[in-house]
């Protein structure tokens, strides 16, 4: 068999090539350099930790009422003070992280999944299918998200499930749009045509060739979307929809402390800071991730 012998010189880069330098590795390397993004990431990890180990960390159960210690400002016994029922605010914040993160991530995952499926179908097939799907998305998108969420939560009744659905639905159009655009870009690339030329089926092309290459915008949209979802859930419970007391959701805590705001400002500050920090961390991390995922291919 004829073999072209390549006369290859020994170079530093050639040694590196032998290691499996995956894309994830490259992304992580770039992300590490962005200090703000890492800060955001650490806060998120902390939050996750708190949410998982809430039972262990929280000094008091979140529903335990104690009429002897009502409306106490922050002190040694209750580091963030107590609310109108004597419940420890810090513990409620800690347990609240579970709820907020749950809603944020789960609703986002649901919204993302539906959005991605619809967007990739629309982007890949184009034509009538594209038109129909995207017009539905336009309708959904034209309703202000808060109003949409309120409408859904109100009609589905109380509870965390209805809050989840209400928040999820509003995020679908954004994902569909982003995924559709990314799919259309990738769809026209040569390697997709090459996949057809070797006989790949449509489903194989979408799953193996298109999806892995549009992960970047999806991840970014998702990361930034979690923050919005959390805020939206907080708004819902602020209005009395979705999460019901005594479940300690940060937005609900904000809402109920309105009455006591003037004399007991700490009641507003604690949940407010919790929400702000979470969303900030998500945004910093999301921005950093987007920059790191930018396909800066080496030339």
């Amino acid at each position: 068999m004829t073999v072209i012998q390549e006369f290859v010189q020994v170079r530093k880069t050639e040694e590196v090539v032998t290691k499996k330098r995956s894309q994830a590795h490259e992304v992580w390397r770039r992300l590490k350099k962005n200090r703000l993004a890492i800060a955001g990431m650490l806060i998120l990890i902390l939050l996750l930790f708190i949410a998982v180990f809430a039972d262990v960390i929280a000094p008091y159960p979140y529903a335990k009422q104690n009429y002897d210690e009502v409306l106490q400002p922050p002190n040694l016994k209750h580091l963030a003070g107590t609310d109108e029922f004597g419940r420890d605010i810090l513990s409620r914040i800690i347990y609240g992280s579970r709820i907020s993160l749950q809603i944020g991530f789960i609703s986002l995952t649901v919204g993302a999944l539906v959005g991605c499926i619809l967007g990739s179908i629309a982007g890949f097939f184009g034509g009538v299918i594209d038109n129909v799907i995207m017009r539905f998305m336009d309708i959904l998108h034209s309703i202000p998200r808060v109003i949409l969420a309120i409408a859904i939560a109100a009609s589905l009744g109380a509870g965390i499930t209805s809050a989840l659905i209400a928040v999820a639905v509003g995020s679908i159009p954004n994902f569909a749009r982003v995924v559709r655009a990314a799919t259309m870009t990738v769809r026209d690339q040569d390697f997709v045509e090459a996949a057809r030329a070797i006989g790949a089926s449509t489903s194989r092309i979408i799953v193996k060739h298109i999806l892995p290459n549009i992960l970047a915008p999806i991840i970014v949209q998702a990361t930034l979307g979690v923050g919005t979802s959390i805020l939206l859930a907080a708004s819902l419970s602020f209005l009395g929809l979705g999460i019901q007391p005594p479940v300690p959701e940060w937005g609900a805590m904000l809402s109920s402390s309105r009455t006591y705001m003037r004399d007991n400002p700490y009641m507003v500050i604690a949940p407010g800071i919790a929400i702000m920090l979470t969303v900030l961390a998500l945004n910093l991390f999301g921005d950093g991730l987007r920059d790191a995922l930018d396909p800066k291919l080496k030339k």
Partner: protein
Amino acid sequence: MTNDNLVTYEKNKNQPLLEVTNLKKYFRTPRGMLHAVDDVSFEVNQGETLGVVGESGCGKTTLGRVIIRLLDATAGNIYYRGENITNSTDKRTHELRRDMQIIFQDPYSSLNPRMTVGESISEPLIIHKVFSKKVDIDKRIEELMDTVGLASRFVNSYPHELDGGRRQRIGIARTLALEPDFIVCDEPVSALDVSIQAQILNLMQDLQDEKNFTYIFITHNLAVVKHISDQILVMYLGVVVEKSTSDNLFKNPLHPYTRALLSAIPEPTLKKTRNRQLLRGEISSPIEPKPGCRFAVRCEYAKERCFIENPVYEEMLPGHYVACHQTKEIQQIR
């Protein structure tokens, strides 16, 4: 080749491997019908290389895609080993992929950036379920990489870690995976540096010698096409204006466009005088072309007839086809 094909082939050894008759491919655009490929006919024998040259907009890329059924023909026929595959069913097209393949131009966009070298090369094998055991697949990957001159240590590398020449070799290895007989090469070396071009061209020729491949080699580079082709098709605005053997086309170009094209090539030699035939104007639009010769507007030999009547594509000299009203007159002038 499957067994069926082998049997059919043995029966019809004298027929060309590929025959195309009156092939048309039109695209509908808001401004009208775009005649990308307009009534093209030719044949290619096994083991031959047919070069297709022309500038942008001539339809050569579309022609390549239609032949291997990545696009559906608008009209006309494509015969592969005597079988009419113009409107082959999806199932049949899928089977044909094992015989007819394509090498793409841009080594930077023709590989999935998320797949390793090994994964890209083995994908055809997986899709067509060629092997059942992973160990067989891995062995084949190694063989293919060796054939195209890629060091085996790159099997887990990603395309972005390698240069253009190596990426093109990956593309070629992928094309060879199913052991096709017929390969459309769409500008396979245009995006590469000169020294790498030479390496890849040699590789393609070696492979052809060894495995008796049949190539359709699409390019705009005349020096490359002369080097690698047996026969050459010259296209202009979707129409074949001239066809001949490689040597003959360059020694005795008959069509005015071919002559202008040849004279336009900058040659890396010192010529004291250059007989440049500069074409007037620019290429006209392929959308709803008017009747008559499409080249007439730019042609220095054009007469009234050329603007009204479509020239007939016919054999002017043995094995030398031209589509031009003025061929005889031009020959006399020269």
